[in-house]
């Protein structure tokens, strides 16, 4: 494998660091929301280390916090993480190495590491970008979760006063936004929102979110 030139490394490191910093308020919020949703300090911190996918963590904790069922929280999180499967397959050709190494770095398959890796042309640089972004986000995500969980453990009052509960829908909107320029994604998103909205009064918390996946069939049919 050819070595990665220093300028490329610098570019990758800068990108990785800024993308990891962007995740930090999220991590702080997750720590706070985790505690506010009734999770213990250990559970909140373990979620970030063990699940390590922002949107699925928020989804699961949001469903738990509104009194939702275990099955609803797990399936909503897993459906949201179906993209991890696609990311892993996308990254697989560049992740050569012994089985134990591939198994270990698989935990770093996230939006950010996939984004940084796939913007590089050379396989060695892609691998480097995957590891740099994955490790940077892992460190800052978990660090900020711990900080958020400890600092905001006083709970709901601080979250309401600072408007922290609005950061979750805003973050989801921020993740959704780039997809909205594509008509098939836009159609699926709008249908998903309508399904979720319409089912809320009639289904247990979280089930509406899982049911919204049905909107995908609309976009795939064409």
């Amino acid at each position, binding site marked *: 494998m050819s070595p990665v030139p220093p300028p490329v490394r610098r570019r990758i490191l800068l990108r990785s660091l800024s993308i990891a910093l962007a995740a930090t308020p999220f991590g702080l919020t997750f720590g706070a929301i985790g505690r506010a949703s009734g999770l213990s300090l250990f559970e909140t911190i373990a979620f970030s280390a063990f699940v390590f996918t922002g949107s699925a963590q928020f989804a699961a904790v949001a469903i738990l916090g509104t009194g939702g069922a275990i099955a609803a929280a797990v399936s909503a999180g897993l459906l949201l993480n179906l993209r991890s499967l696609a990311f892993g397959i996308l990254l697989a050709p560049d992740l050569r190495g012994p089985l134990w190494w591939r198994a270990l770095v698989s935990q770093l398959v996230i939006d950010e590491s996939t984004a940084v890796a796939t913007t590089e042309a050379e396989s060695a640089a892609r691998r480097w970008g995957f590891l740099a972004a994955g490790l940077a986000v892992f460190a800052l995500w978990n660090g900020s979760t711990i900080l958020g969980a400890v600092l905001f453990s006083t709970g709901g009052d601080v979250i309401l006063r600072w408007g922290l509960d609005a950061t979750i829908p*805003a973050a989801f909107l921020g993740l959704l936004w780039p997809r909205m320029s594509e008509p098939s*994604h836009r159609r699926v998103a709008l249908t998903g929102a309508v399904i979720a909205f319409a089912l809320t009064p009639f289904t247990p918390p979280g089930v509406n979110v899982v049911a919204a996946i049905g909107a995908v069939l609309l976009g*795939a049919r064409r």
Partner: protein
Amino acid sequence: MTDATVVLVLLGLGTYALKAAGPVLIGGRALPVWISRLADLAPAALLAALIVSSTAVTNAELTFDARIVGLIAAGVALRLKAPFVVVIVIAAAATALTRSLR
């Protein structure tokens, strides 16, 4: 074990399986087209549904409060191409401001 611990373990294992399937098992081969198409579209539907449930649902009921102002402010910020972090801060600030006015 609490519900949260059960969710943590199941979601953690399931997510890891999804992440690791490609690197560990498949190597260089690509997904069948129809599966990758569904997996590609799924986040759009789910993120939209999550926006609804994290904005307008409290204790399994539809509620409309200051979070909506925050979400609208976030949409405006995104429209103006604000960075992700700024969008989140603006949403929190708009929501906090709306609550302080009441």
